[in-house]
């Protein structure tokens, strides 16, 4: 019995502690402080920690504080605190929200008295009906108090805080879900290439379960050479389901649970375009990139080893290995500008047979040029928390508007016939926003005076 009571009291103390506003303030400041540390600490310096402080910082995960255990714990405590604190107060707010309109409360002295001369009760009632339009609820006049009118509006503002706190809780949960289960990574796809795996930011390789092919990457420029558009034309294929999409910055593509965004691009070693003639007059044009192997005829196989846009400052060149049937393989450095090179450096071809476009005698090679081969870099994401976060954001804004731009306004008006006119005594009360209440009363006075 006693033990139970002690235990209960301990729970009580704990709940009190974890629901206190002071703890809330402390935790919010803690989150702000940790975030600040994260922007000031250089992540690079902490990759190789030095000395006691360096090692301590490393142990505390300060190089990636936003994903550290410490941050996680503070965020969870904050979540618990926020929920407990709100639950503790919620019943009172709901009671306030449910409360019937209060007719009896004329205990407050009237703030304003307006006397309108020559007004009939009928018109006075019409004007009060007009006042009532500005409110949600009206009570009176009743039997006991024939002259008392009560109005109110904005009770929902009592609930605003709880919607805000709920939204913050949802956002916190969303952030945690995102951090734990969301994946992201970048994938590089050359034009014409297809991928089905992405290296994630944590270093592991993720199988998408479908293929992404990049058909074309384009970049447009403004006249002043600033980039105007980056665009990747891609095709997603999963079984016989396909989807073609144009991914641009600010216009991602979504396939299944995955989103793909334009992140970056580059030019790969281009493709080399060259012709080969054999002694009998057979001529062929080939387009090859590094690693490509092609059989020219039964007697010759060609492997492109390197494509250089500017080899030794002498312009475009291709390094290929030629394998004539039954003979030793031969290396060829095929320069586009070989005529000029030979003219400026007499004897060079004799000294370096590998520079000779006719190194195989029977065949002669001619490099026409290089073709750029773009690759695109796409950012891939699969975040299960998107919907949670979006809902939290919407609720947050809705709640804040309720908190700051709605208030519970109550107005009591007592009318009394005096001489040939009617006197209106106005009392009012607001749970916040006294400036707004004052303006409200000004408006009501105008209506009563017939100016509105």
């Amino acid at each position, binding site marked *: 019995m006693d033990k139970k009571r002690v235990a209960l009291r301990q729970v009580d103390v704990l709940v009190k502690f974890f629901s206190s506003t002071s703890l809330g*303030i402390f935790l919010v400041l803690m989150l702000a402080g940790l975030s600040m540390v994260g922007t000031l600490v250089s992540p690079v310096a902490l990759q190789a920690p030095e000395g006691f402080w360096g090692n301590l910082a490393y142990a505390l995960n300060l190089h990636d504080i*936003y994903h550290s255990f410490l941050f996680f714990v503070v965020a969870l405590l904050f979540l618990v605190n926020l929920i407990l604190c709100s639950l503790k107060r919620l019943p009172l707010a709901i009671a306030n929200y449910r409360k019937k309109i209060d007719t009896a409360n004329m205990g407050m002295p009237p703030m304003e008295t307006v006397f309108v001369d020559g007004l009939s009760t009928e018109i006075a009632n019409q004007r009060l009906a007009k006042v009532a339009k500005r409110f949600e609820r009206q009570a009176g006049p009743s039997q006991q108090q024939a002259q008392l009118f009560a109005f109110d509006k904005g009770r929902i503002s009592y609930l605003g805080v709880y919607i805000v706190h709920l939204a913050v809780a949802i956002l916190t949960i969303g952030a945690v879900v995102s951090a734990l289960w969301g994946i992201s990574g970048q994938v590089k796809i050359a034009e014409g290439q297809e991928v089905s795996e992405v290296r994630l930011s944590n270093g592991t390789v993720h199988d998408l379960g479908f293929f992404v092919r990049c058909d074309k990457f384009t970049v447009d420029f403004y006249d002043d050479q*600033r980039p105007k558009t980056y665009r990747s034309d891609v095709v997603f294929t999963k079984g016989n389901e396909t989807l073609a999409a144009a991914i641009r910055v*600010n216009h991602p593509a979504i396939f299944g649970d995955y989103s793909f965004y*334009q*992140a970056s691009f580059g030019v790969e070693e281009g493709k080399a375009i060259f012709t080969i003639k054999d002694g009998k007059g057979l001529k062929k044009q080939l387009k090859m990139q590094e690693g490509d192997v092609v059989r020219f005829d039964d007697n010759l196989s060609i492997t492109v080893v390197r494509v250089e846009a500017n080899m030794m400052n002498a312009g475009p060149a291709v390094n290929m290995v030629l394998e004539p049937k039954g003979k030793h393989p031969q290396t060829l450095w095929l320069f586009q500008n070989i005529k000029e090179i030979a003219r400026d450096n007499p004897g060079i071809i004799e000294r370096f047979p590998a520079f000779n476009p006719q190194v195989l005698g029977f065949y002669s090679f001619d490099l026409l040029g290089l073709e750029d081969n773009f690759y695109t870099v796409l950012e891939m994401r699969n975040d299960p928390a998107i919907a949670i976060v979006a809902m939290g954001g919407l609720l947050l804004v809705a709640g804040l508007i309720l908190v700051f731009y709605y208030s519970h306004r109550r107005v009591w008006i007592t009318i009394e016939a005096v001489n040939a006119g009617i006197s209106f005594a106005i009392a009012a009360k607001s749970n916040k926003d006294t400036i707004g209440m004052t303006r409200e009363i000004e408006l009501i006075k105008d209506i009563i005076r017939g100016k509105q």
Partner: protein
Amino acid sequence: MNTKIFALVTFIYLFSFVLYLISVSSERKKISSVANYVTGLGFLLHAVGLITRWVESHQQGFGYAPLSNFYESLVFFAFSLVAVYFYTARRAKSDAMGVFILPLAFLLMAFASITPGMSSAIEPLIPALQSNWLISHVITCFLGYAGFTLAFALAIIYSLRGTKLGFLCRGISPELTEQLMYTTAAFGFVLLTIGIITGSIWAHYAWGSYWSWDPKEVWSLITWLVYVVMLHSRYVRGWGGKKMAIFALIGFVCVIITYLGVNYLPGLHSYL
């Protein structure tokens, strides 16, 4: 053309600051209402300047809302500041903030036009900036910053009372100061919240991640959290207007760091 209008606006703001100063030190109501008209004129011209710039960007074939580079952001910050000041002053029927807000508006405009290396040219938008979310993001953030700047001015008014410079707070009661400090900060808070949300949506589309812990994002979160504390100061036992004023000051420092300081840290948002 637009830059000439902005130059004129800069001087009008300086002039209305002087008028507000004369009016608070001489306690002449007339001068204060002249100052209001002058400020109003400056504000209208400011709006005309923004529209002109927008039209000019269309004439040059780029066609974008003038909210995209550092120069434009300074000009728009000043514009938001005067707008929020006007609204608050009219609603509360007090011009006491004018003497603090107008010099800030003037400084922002002057900073925009005289800082060396600041480009006031209309330039085409790089792909990441071609987004309607950018427009809503920038507008909401700067209106929010303007709200916080007002709260900051009111915190100064609050702390000057009873000092040698106390004459600057004659036009406003301590209760009204405290209340307005709260409502302007709350306005800033709501707008900053929407600004962070629209920014996240934009980042979601542009970079594939609605939150990447980029320094500017983090500092906007820090700013947001500081104002969370400020908005709760009424509910913490024993915290009064003084603590609120302190947090309005700290919050404003965070706003400045969010706006300018993080340009010196690497990230996606840098203007420099």
